[in-house]
């Protein structure tokens, strides 16, 4: 579906006409990200992050495929093969630093994309499916990133793999067999490294597939916008091309500048020094920490320190960590305020900013050693995280008195200009 005023693809060139009547691929692109897709005219810069996430995935796939040509997924030589890439492969250092920092950039833009959705209520009807597919992409990204971090086979790779697969070991009765099955052994070794490499190569293409569904689902109702008011007429929209291709081009430039600064001038800033030590099953690092983008979840995992009746604290932590992401799947039904945008929801807006600070605190605690006072702080922060989504949002959507909405996007734009 699209808006009735969407431009139609009319190829002039006979070759394109011939192609269009047999395989209308250019028409598909035209309608998806070309002039055939009408988009609200009032999108702000926060709407750049979807395209930037796609660009980040593209960078990861291209650098990753070339790295895979030089990497050896074997416990005995994986670490050395990464150093071979860094030292002997032409521009290998550039590829590897781009891939390692590209993962961080990917998560930065995806987190901003998610928080944009949270603030502007992009998860609400009729875009629930866009939100749900986005969460599927997020879960796949986390799995891909985790397995990718194991591949260099440094100390943090090895112990990270051990801790994360150990989470499954917390499941009662079947936990340990599951952990052994996942690893292909009792501890991370060649079998684990090989299957992680295989899946790390596969999952990005699964992500690309789910992205197509994500965009498909988006094109049914069309893009949301900062007012949260639906498109009513043609003057509320502009064609995606050239208006948003131009704006996204500028956004992509800014993204690449930040990426380049990180890659060329601080390539190891976000990494952990211990991963430059070869994996050693006999020596446990003082602090095992995942990459920064997992820190909030790692903090939730470690926040459970007290057994509840017969449920061990470790199992509670595992359940809570998975629950912290899974609850987002229910968000469209937990927050049933008819108003989408946080601009017109005074109460919601305040709690939204509390949530942002809360997640940053969780992230900080997740990267800190598992000792007081960080455990205590992460317990309070994790308590707020669950309360925010499961208790506070449903209550707000009942009691809040939203500000008056503009009659249309165009009216809001003109009011802002005046």
């Amino acid at each position: 579906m699209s808006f009735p005023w969407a431009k139609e693809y009319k190829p002039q060139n006979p070759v394109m006409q011939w192609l269009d009547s047999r395989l209308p691929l250019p028409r598909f692109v035209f309608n998806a990200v070309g002039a055939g897709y009408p988009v609200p005219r009032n999108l702000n810069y926060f709407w750049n992050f979807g395209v930037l996430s796609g660009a980040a995935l593209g960078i990861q796939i291209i650098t990753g495929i070339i790295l895979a040509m030089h990497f050896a997924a074997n416990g005995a030589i994986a670490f050395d093969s990464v150093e071979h890439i860094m030292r002997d492969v032409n521009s290998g250092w550039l590829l590897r630093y781009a891939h390692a920092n590209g993962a961080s950039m990917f998560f930065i833009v995806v987190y901003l994309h998610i928080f944009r959705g949270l603030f502007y209520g992009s998860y609400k009807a009729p875009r629930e499916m866009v939100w749900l597919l986005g969460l599927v992409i997020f879960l796949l990204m986390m799995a891909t990133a985790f397995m990718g971090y194991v591949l260099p086979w440094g100390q943090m790779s090895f112990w990270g793999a051990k801790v994360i697969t150990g989470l499954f070991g917390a499941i009662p009765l079947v936990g340990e067999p599951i952990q052994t099955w996942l690893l292909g052994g009792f501890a991370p070794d060649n079998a684990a490294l090989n299957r992680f490499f295989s899946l790390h190569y596969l999952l990005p293409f699964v992500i690309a597939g789910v992205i197509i569904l994500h965009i498909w689902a988006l094109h049914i109702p069309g893009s949301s916008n900062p007012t949260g008011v639906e498109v009513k007429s043609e003057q509320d929209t502009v064609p995606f091309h050239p208006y948003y291709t131009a704006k996204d081009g500028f956004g992509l430039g800014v993204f690449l500048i930040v990426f380049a600064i990180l890659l060329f001038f601080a390539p190891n800033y976000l990494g952990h020094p211990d991963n430059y030590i070869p994996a050693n099953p006999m020596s446990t690092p003082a602090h095992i920490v995942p990459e920064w983008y997992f820190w909030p979840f790692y903090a939730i995992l470690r926040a459970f320190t007290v057994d509840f009746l017969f449920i061990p604290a470790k199992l509670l932590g595992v359940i809570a960590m998975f629950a912290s992401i899974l609850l987002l799947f229910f968000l469209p039904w937990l927050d049933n305020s008819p108003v989408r945008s946080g601009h017109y929801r005074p109460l919601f807006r305040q709690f939204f900013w509390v949530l942002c600070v809360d997640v940053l605190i969780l992230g900080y605690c997740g990267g800190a050693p598992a000792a007081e006072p960080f455990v205590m702080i992460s317990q309070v922060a994790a308590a707020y995280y669950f309360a925010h989504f499961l208790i506070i949002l449903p209550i707000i959507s009942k009691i809040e008195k939203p500000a008056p909405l503009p009659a249309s996007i165009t009216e809001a734009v003109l009011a802002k200009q005046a």
Partner: protein
Amino acid sequence: MVRLIAAIVGLFFSGWLLVSAVLGGTAYISEPPAATAESLFHKHPKEVEFSFEGPLGKYDRAQLQRGFQVYKEVCSACHGLAQVAFRDLQQIGYSEGAVKKIAADWPNQIASIDPATGEAATRKALPTDKIAGPYPNDVAARAANNNALPPDLSLIAKARHEGPAYLYSLLSGYEAQPAELLKQFPEAKTPNGLHYNPYFATLNLAMPQPLTSDGQVTYADGNPKPTVDQMSKDVAAFLTWAAEPKLENRHRTGLGVLIFLLMATGLAFMSYKSIWADKKH
């Protein structure tokens, strides 16, 4: 129904977390964690400046060669440099001939096979060989070092927080165990076979002070005086190069990429503004 279940789950998680926080918090306040020798006497790396720092930093070739000399005459007695080949030394200013000679004179020979008998043998190193340590395997290394394993130094500068400053501080930071420490923590006395160094995470490390006196290594004429401080700095710089040999290339490429991106982004911004000029938004 969804909201009811959510509220119950939320109350459980949040409630139990708050209970845990109160329990942990009371324990923390009533019995604050005792100070340890490490928490009081461990020192952060010293402030030190290197030529390769900053976005446009470059290695100082003369310093790297001095550092290599320290590595060769002191460190290599125990530590290998297994990711670095002799030929890589050409990057720090040695000629091809000099590299051949360094490899041939290297005391740690390379394991090989006797072509006549097929028996295990050793041969002189070639420029294409990696810089081997003195021990054939980890067991031999531990046996010779009181059960401590001297780590390979190829990546040591990137495998420690603030690597270059840390290496410099560690090498120049050996001292007698402070009397104050022994007074407060008599049980933390440095055990036999270990050596006190406040820059080491656990304060005591197996490596005895390697750079013990000024002039231990003789630098060629015109070079700075080989004090312990100078030698530590030079070898820290050399090991940083060993860990990150492409640093200069990276800085140079980064500068070009940034200039290009700034211009391209400027153009993209102008085209964005001109395309939107007639649209209020």
